[in-house]
């Protein structure tokens, strides 16, 4: 054989070797594999990190709170339901004193019993630095969720008493954040939270079994879960962090995962064509411009605020996003239990907007000029650049000329904490910020309560209206859930009727999944229930 032939043969071999990789067969059934957007496995010890996603996948799966969210319906708004507590009452004379009756017979995954002592132990884990089980990482996540709590004690094995700093009827919402980890397991793991992270124990419907940092975590059903209908039907659920949007889509399309969170909007069409289901639903999220109410801000004039809200072509924006949004009708998504009946309708009416602006002394020829802070990307921010440019164009048409100051997402968060008066806000009179609005505090109070102006809180725009503060106080002092809802509706009506934000849109929390995933009900919530899911053969 000559060299020439040998070399030609080698060249052919080379070409064919590229193509010689064999396909693997069918994958195991009954296993659901999910691609998350987080870049690491969220904290597994109880109080999770990585925001709503962490709580969704490693909070409410492996753990319970005293008060849980009802995640059973896709059509009705999600509300609170009893969790590890079966009922709660406040003292007739002292409204700061709460009594929580605990569920009897609940066991942690390690077999130890859930008792009132465990509740106290878990609150100490977050709030008491001197306690041996105090965990700074969980505390950082959990402590700011329960600002109302002043003290707590076990009354008997199945009764806990919690005292709040002032009367605060939003306590159940606050407690819905707090996950209960097993004290016995912490002892067993050498009183070391890093060890607990590898083999955690909660009371939830899923048990965390295999944990490879940064790569995957596996959950299996807890057959002894106290809420029998919520015992998972799957054999196993595998969670994989896939922070890169294209990598997520590729993983789904190649069959490596069955479900991905937040597919890139431009991939949605092709995923649909390839037979994948795109599941969306309304949930308590909004995409707004948070307006500055500092002296000198043009947004102090209600006519300007209303004009801006009337100038936005929300249907046009929806087309831009390939339908992946819900046009805002208020601060909360339409249909939410706190929506109420605001009289100001967020229609697209440039003529009315121009008229209002003219009354305020502006016109397209003599426009109002102002600066807005935006980010180029960020968790929950959707597609901030094209969306803000769209809004900018809409506003320019009626006589509001907006300049953007684009900052990086984490910088924007810092500016948001610092407030509109702070020099880091660089004279911006508004900020494009998206909100998690799941409970009265995150939904309303933190944005606009007078004493939550920075640096005390996150009332970025330094808004202060005694009337609004009175409503917030009423919410905290109304312990009957129905009456409380009525006040929350009143607050929302004021949010909309006073046009306190530039309310643009709500995200629809898209997820893409293979046709094999059956039985998933996407609740109108940041959190979801994975128990009813099955995988078709």
């Amino acid at each position, binding site marked *: 054989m000559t060299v020439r032939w040998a070399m030609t043969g080698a060249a052919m071999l080379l070409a064919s070797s590229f193509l010689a990789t064999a396909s693997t067969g069918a994958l195991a059934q009954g296993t659901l594999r999910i691609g998350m957007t987080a870049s690491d496995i969220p904290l597994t010890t109880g109080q999770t990190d990585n925001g709503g996603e962490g709580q969704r996948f490693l909070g409410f799966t492996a753990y319970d709170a005293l008060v849980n969210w009802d995640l059973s319906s896709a059509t009705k708004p999600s509300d609170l339901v009893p969790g590890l507590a079966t009922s709660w009452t406040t003292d007739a004379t002292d409204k700061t004193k709460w009594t929580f009756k605990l569920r009897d017979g609940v066991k942690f995954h390690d077999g130890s019993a859930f008792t009132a002592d465990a509740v106290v132990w878990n609150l100490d884990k977050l709030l008491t630095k001197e306690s041996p089980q105090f965990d700074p990482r969980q505390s950082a996540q959990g402590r700011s969720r329960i600002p109302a709590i002043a003290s707590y004690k076990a009354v008997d094995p199945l009764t806990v008493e919690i005292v709040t700093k002032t009367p605060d009827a939003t306590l159940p919402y606050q407690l819905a954040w707090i996950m209960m980890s097993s004290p016995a397991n912490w002892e067993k793991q050498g009183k070391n939270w890093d060890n607990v992270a590898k083999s955690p124990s909660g009371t939830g419907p899923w048990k965390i079994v295999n944990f490879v940092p940064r790569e995957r975590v596996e959950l299996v059903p807890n057959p002894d879960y106290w809420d029998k209908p919520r015992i998972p039907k799957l054999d196993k659920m595998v969670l994989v962090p896939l922070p890169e949007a294209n990598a997520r889509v590729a993983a789904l399309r190649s069959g490596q995962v069955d479900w991905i969170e937040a597919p890139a909007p431009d991939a949605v069409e092709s995923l649909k064509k390839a037979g994948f289901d795109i599941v969306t639903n309304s949930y308590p999220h909004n995409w707004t411009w948070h307006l500055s109410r500092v002296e000198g801000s043009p947004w102090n004039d209600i006519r300007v605020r209303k004009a801006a809200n009337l100038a936005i072509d929300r249907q046009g924006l929806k087309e831009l996003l390939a339908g992946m949004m819900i046009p805002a009708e208020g601060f909360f998504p339409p249909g939410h239990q706190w929506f109420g009946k605001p009289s100001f309708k967020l229609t697209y009416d440039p003529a009315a907007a121009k008229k209002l602006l003219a009354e305020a002394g502006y016109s397209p020829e003599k426009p109002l000029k102002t600066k807005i802070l935006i980010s180029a990307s960020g968790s929950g921010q959707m597609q901030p650049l094209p969306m803000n440019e769209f809004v900018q164009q809409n506003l320019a048409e009626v006589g509001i000329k907006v300049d953007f100051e684009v900052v990086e997402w984490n910088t924007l968060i810092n500016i948001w*904490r610092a407030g509109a008066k702070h020099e880091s806000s660089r004279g911006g009179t508004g900020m494009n910020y998206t909100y998690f609005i799941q409970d009265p505090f995150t939904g309303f109070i*933190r944005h606009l309560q007078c004493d939550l102006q920075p640096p005390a809180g*996150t009332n970025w725009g330094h808004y202060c209206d005694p009337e609004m503060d009175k409503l917030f106080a009423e919410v905290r002092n109304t312990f009957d859930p129905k009456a409380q809802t009525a006040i929350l509706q009143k607050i929302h009506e004021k949010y909309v009727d006073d046009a306190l934000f530039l309310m643009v849109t709500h995200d629809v929390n898209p997820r893409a999944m293979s046709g094999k995933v059956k039985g998933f009900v996407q609740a109108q919530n940041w959190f979801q229930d994975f128990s009813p899911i099955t995988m078709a053969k």
Partner: protein
Amino acid sequence: MLFYTAKRFVLMLPVAIGVSLVCFLLVHLAPGDPLSAVLPTDASAETQAEMRKLYGFDKPLPVQYGLWLGRVLQGDLGVSIASGRPVAGEVINAVENSLVLAAAATLIGFVLGSLLGLLGGYFRGTIIDRLSSFTAVLGVSVPHYWLGMVLVIIFSVQLNWLPATGGGPQGSDSKGLNWDYIRFLVLPAITMSVIPMGIVARTVKALVAEILNQEFVQALAAKGLTERGVFRHVIKNAAPTALAVMGLQLGYLLGGSILIETVFSWPGTGFLLNAAIFQRDLPLLQGTILVLAIFFVVLNLLVDVVQTAIDPRVQRA
């Protein structure tokens, strides 16, 4: 020789300290709050201050640097803010994975590159030569991440032959010499191999062409050596340079690739860096950069020492 090595080693120390200073300062000068990874966005000012104190971010920068350097010298790279795990463990894991990927990519790149180079050099001026040159140029010019995505679209999405992402069937813990693991390695390794392939191909082709023009080749042929025999001599003469080039390429690839590892979610140093940057995880970022930088400093030292051993002229210079 010993003296030279010792001198070079001593010279390495200020470089290493400089490197540590630069990587400490760089991550601290970048905007963003290192605590954003662990705090909810609306955490109270009090909680923020407490966490800042806990992680030592409340101290002046020079003090922070001193404390950090002190710990690093004891082999403690600190604890990742975001994951709570020791940075050293995370970096070692990642380096291991990057090593596997780099070795596979170098192997593929070297074999393919040599073959292409030999073909091109041997068939000078023919269509095969032009094809080989074209492939080599393509190899060094095509953007990595783009090629990665195209390969994923073809081999994972369309043909469903190979996994699109991940470091192994059960994560990178399932490393092993079996197809279940290797199939995860194929696409990222091929993507990563194109640059060394291009460079090796061009080097080998030039070498072969040059050697074939030398008189000893004609002499060998004139002496009646078969074509195969002559070629063996050509390869022997080209091998040392080609191997040296390959060694350098391996060095570059060991540093990992943020782009390739991110596209394939390959849990190496590049992937780790990417995560650390996005999470503002300063200890992890500092630790990873430091390890990589020290690695390059040591690699340079080794190259210098080896070169001196081979070529005494370097020592005199």
